[in-house]
Every structure is written in C-alpha cells, then in structure tokens.
C-alpha cells in the first residue's frame, strides 16, 4: 500500500487553509483596533475630552466581539498540527513548537489577562493606569502575531536549526537566529501594519455610515479623522514591507517569486515588463495572454536594471542535479538508520543540503521508496520530479495581484479621505463616504490574498527545501478528513453568522452614551462641556 494518499493530503491542506483563512478574518482587526483604541485613549488622557473616552469604549466593544469569536478559532490550527500534520510535527516540531509555545504562554496570556482589565477597568482604574492597560493589550496581541510569524518564517526560510540524522528531525540551535530571521522580521511588520489598515478602514467605514445618516456626527468625524491618518501611514508601511518581502522571496524562494510574476522564462532586463494581468496555464507552463508595463519587473524585484530574474523553466532544469543529490542523501540516511555505518553518514553529509529534493522524489519512486530507484530508472524519476518543485502559478499570480491592486486602492482611498477630513468637507462627499462604507471588508480580503500568496507560493514544501507537503500529513482515512472538514465548515459558518449579526447590531446602535444630548443642533457639547472641566471628565 502507498504511504501517501493524495486525497488525504489535499483534504488536510484544504482543511488547514479553511481554518487559517477563517481565523485570519478576525486577526487583522485585533492587531489594528487595539492600537487605534490606544490612540483614542491617549487623546482622551492628554486632552481630558470625554468624547475620546466614548470613542475608545465604543470601538472597544466592537473589538471585544471580534476578539471573543476570533480567538477561539486560532486554537483549532494548533491542534491541527498534531492531528492532521503529525509527520510535519515529528520532523519540524522542535523548531516550530518553541515560538508557538512562547506565543501561548507569553503573548496570548498577556493579551487575555489585560483584555479583561481593559473592558472592566474603566471605573476602577485611574486614567493613566487604564491607558497603560490598553497599550499592553495592543502590545500583547501584536506579540502574539510576532511569535506565530516567527514560527511561519522558520518554515519559509529555515534558520537557527539543523537536521539530526540520529533523531531524524530538525533540531533547534539558535534562538536568536530564529527570532531575528529576516523573513520573520519583514513578515511580522507587513502583517501587523496590514492589521492597522484593516482596523482603520473598519473605523472609517462605520464612521462614514453615521455621517451618511447624519448620526453621531461629532463622534464619527473624530473617528474618521483618526482612522484616515492611521490608515494612510499604515498603507505606506504595508506597501514598503511588501517590497521587502518580495526581495526576501527573490533571494530565498526563487520559485515563489517567479510564480508571483508569472515568469516562465528568465527575464531579459531592462525591458522585461511587469505583468499586470495574464492567464497562467500550469499544465502547459505558459501564459495565454499578457498585459504588462515595460521596464518595471527588474527594478521591482532586483532593485537594479541589469539582473535577470530566473524563470520557472530554468528553475525546474536547475533542480535536476539537486533531485539526484537528494536521492543519494535520503538513500544514505535510510542505510545509516539501519546500520549506523560512518560511510553512510559521510555520504549523507555530502548531500545533506539536497535532502528535501530526495524526499520530493519519493512520490515517483517504486513503492514510494527512493532506495528502490535503479540506475536505469533514475533519469526518469528525476524528470518526473522536476515539475513538482513549482507552486501553482495561477493561484499565486492572481492572489498576489489582487492583494497589490487592493493595497493601491487603499492608498488612494486613505489619501483622499485624509485630505477631505483635514479640510472638514466630509459631509459634502457622499460618494467618498459610501466608498469607505463598502470598502470595510476589502482589507480583510487583501490579507487573505496575502496569505494565499505566501503559502501557495511556498509549495510543494511545508519546510522550504527540507520537507515536502505530501510527506507532512497524517495517515488519516478520507472519511475521517471529510467528516472533520464538514464539522469545521458547519461550526465556523455559525461563528461567522454570530459575528456578523453582533457587529451589525452594535454598529447600527452606535455609541449609546453619546446619543442623547448632542447631535447636531448643539455645537459639539462634549468639547465645550468637558474641556472646561477636565478633572470631571473621567
């Protein structure tokens, strides 16, 4: 019987994608809203104006709904590593588990503890103490993301560990290397500020809703202004860090960058266009049509005008010798596991860097065992394995483009919104307000596309160049996978329905404490009333 059941692998991947993408519908808001709450509360503490306290409390309530429903869904994935990806956990658990454990014990506990104080401490803590708590919630939620992204980065750019032929798994060497992995750094900042963008548009969109209906205008105008400025700087940061990540992929994951750009053949600088739209065909390994902007690709990727970007065909050809070397590494490793002969270990050490390519050839080896490959069959196995090194180009190409187009749209929207808000002309620009309202879900979509680009582009590996995805899953039955997948789909559909219901309900209700006396007949009563008596504001 084959050890690899492709249906089980595909179902495991689909289930993880489903739970991860679902979880990440909540995460960006948590990352960004906490710092927006901190900004609002900072203004409240500095100025003493009560309206900023009401802003922090109202947006904090929406954050609370998101936090309560969203957090639990992250736990599912941690269990999935053990249940559905046991081979991966066996191979890479030492590297991956450490940051994951720190995330749970440090960041998540910190966030969860202070969240309670933030919600229930308004009347029990001093203004300054409550502000400190809000900052700690924001820091905790972002530190939580940091450790997860450190773990993810170790899968994309494995650093700080080595493979041990005695234990047959990757082992941890350097904590500093894992934490300061360049991929972790840029991915954390990119993801964190993408959360800021999501939160900013969330606040801006709901504020636009109030302005369109002529409700809570003082509240909405301030929320809108803060969100617009928060959003424009965050969007610049997210685009900048996107470029840094692209550069990282160019250096460390050339197959991902070639797939992102739909580049089947090595580029011809400096003319090579950046493809705006195309229809990549993975089966025929070509693009059916292309619309591109000349002279853009080379500086965009290589940051100069002369360096050719290696294409997918050339990367595939270059993988041939590595596959052959990897087969020798895995064969020597198998022999060493049985005999513990130094000669086998020496052979393994000589080919260790290509071990992952040997694992990749397993699928095409007789009885899925590379030691069964004869000298005559070797060229055929290598040829069959070569296309396996490529990710799905269509998915990676379009997920990346949709993310980038959305980011450029956010930049324009935040820039115009900031300008109009600074000019105090929001109410005259109904179209802009409607655009802001309808754009609320788009940053969440953009972050989802970002994750699809990162993870689909890393394929066929779970640990890049070390462990193929098809060798990472557990050996469940298909019916088990279908049953658990159906369960998750049902449960998560209920969660999302509850989240949307509560969000719509409380967003429509608006900031209740602010309803009664003000709106627009009087001139921003809280400003005049509160600013004159700051000590009574709290």
């Amino acid at each position, binding site marked *: 019987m084959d050890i690899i059941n492709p249906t089980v692998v595909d179902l495991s991947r689909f289930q993880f994608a489903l739970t991860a993408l679902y979880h990440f519908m909540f995460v960006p808001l948590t990352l960004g809203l906490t*710092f927006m709450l901190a900004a609002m509360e900072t*203004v409240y503490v500095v100025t003493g*104006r009560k309206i900023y306290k009401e802003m922090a409390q109202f947006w904090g309530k929406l954050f609370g709904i998101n936090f309560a429903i969203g957090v639990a869904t992250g736990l599912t994935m941690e269990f999935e590593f053990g249940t559905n990806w046991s081979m991966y956990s066996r191979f890479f658990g030492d590297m991956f588990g450490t940051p994951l454990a720190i995330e749970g014990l440090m960041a998540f506990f910190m966030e969860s503890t202070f969240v309670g104080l933030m919600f229930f401490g308004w009347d029990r803590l001093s203004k300054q103490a409550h502000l400190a708590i809000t900052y700690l919630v924001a820091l905790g939620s972002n530190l939580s993301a940091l450790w997860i992204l450190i773990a993810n980065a170790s899968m994309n750019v494995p650093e700080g560990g080595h493979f041990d032929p005695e234990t047959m798994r990757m082992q941890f060497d350097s904590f500093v290397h894992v934490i300061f992995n360049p991929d972790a750094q840029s991915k954390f900042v990119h993801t964190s500020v993408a959360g800021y963008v999501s939160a900013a548009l969330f606040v801006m969109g709901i504020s636009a809703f109030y302005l369109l209906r002529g409700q809570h205008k003082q509240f909405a105008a301030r929320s809108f202004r*803060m969100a617009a400025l*928060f959003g424009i700087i965050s969007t610049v940061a997210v685009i900048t860090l996107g470029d840094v990540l692209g550069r990282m992929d160019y250096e460390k994951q050339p197959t991902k960058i070639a797939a992102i750009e739909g580049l089947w053949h090595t580029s011809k600088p400096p003319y090579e266009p950046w493809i705006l739209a195309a229809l990549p065909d993975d089966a025929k390994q070509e693009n059916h049509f292309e619309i591109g902007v000349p002279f853009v690709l080379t500086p965009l990727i290589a940051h100069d005008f002369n360096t050719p970007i290696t294409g997918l065909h050339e990367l595939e050809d270059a993988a041939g010798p590595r596959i052959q070397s990897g087969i020798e590494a895995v064969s020597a490793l198998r022999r060493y596991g049985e005999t513990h002969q130094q000669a086998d270990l020496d052979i393994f050490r000589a080919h260790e860097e290509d071990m992952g390519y040997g694992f990749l050839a397993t699928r095409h080896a007789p009885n899925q065992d590379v030691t069964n490959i004869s000298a005559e069959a070797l060229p055929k196995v290598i040829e069959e394995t070569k296309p396996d090194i490529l990710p799905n180009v269509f998915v990676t190409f379009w997920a990346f483009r949709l993310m980038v187009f959305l980011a450029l749209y956010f930049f324009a929207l935040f820039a115009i919104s900031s300008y109009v808000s600074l000019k105090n*002309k929001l109410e005259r620009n109904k179209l802009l307000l409607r655009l802001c309202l309808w754009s609320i879900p788009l940053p969440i979509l953009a972050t989802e596309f970002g994750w699809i680009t990162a993870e689909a582009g890393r394929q066929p590996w779970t640990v890049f160049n070390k462990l193929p995805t098809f060798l990472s899953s557990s050996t469940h039955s298909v019916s088990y996978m279908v049953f658990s997948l159906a369960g998750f789909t049902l449960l998560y559909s209920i969660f999302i329905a509850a989240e949307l219901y509560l969000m719509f309900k409380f967003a429509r209700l608006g900031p209740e404490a602010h309803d009664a006396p003000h709106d627009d007949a009087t*001139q*921003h009563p809280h*400003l005049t009333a509160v600013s004159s008596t700051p000590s009574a504001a709290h």
Partner: protein
Amino acid sequence: MSLFRMAGLAIVLVVSLLFAVFVGDQGPWYFAWVIGTVMIILISGAGAILLDSQLDSSPDNEV
C-alpha cells in the same frame, strides 16, 4: 520624590537606548515597527486634536 522619578526616567532612558542599539542592529524591521507604530498613533492623535481646534474655531461646525 523627584529624585526617584528622575532616577526612574534615567533607567527607562538607558533601557530604551540599549533596546534601540540591540534591536536596531539585530532586527531593523522590528525597530522600525516600534518607531512606526508610535508615529502612527501620534499622528492619528494629532489629527484628532487638530479637528477639535478646527471645530472650536469653525462657525458652521461642518465636518
């Protein structure tokens, strides 16, 4: 009391400088995140305070 406060602030300053030197060297993007997030919060807050003064001095109270 002010001596203790000064000593406390001096310790915060030294820790911040050490943090900046170490993280700035080892993890420049982490450092950029810390500085950038503070900047985003300050600019966002400054925008709100500017709106307050704009509304205080605006006769028509238009937003």
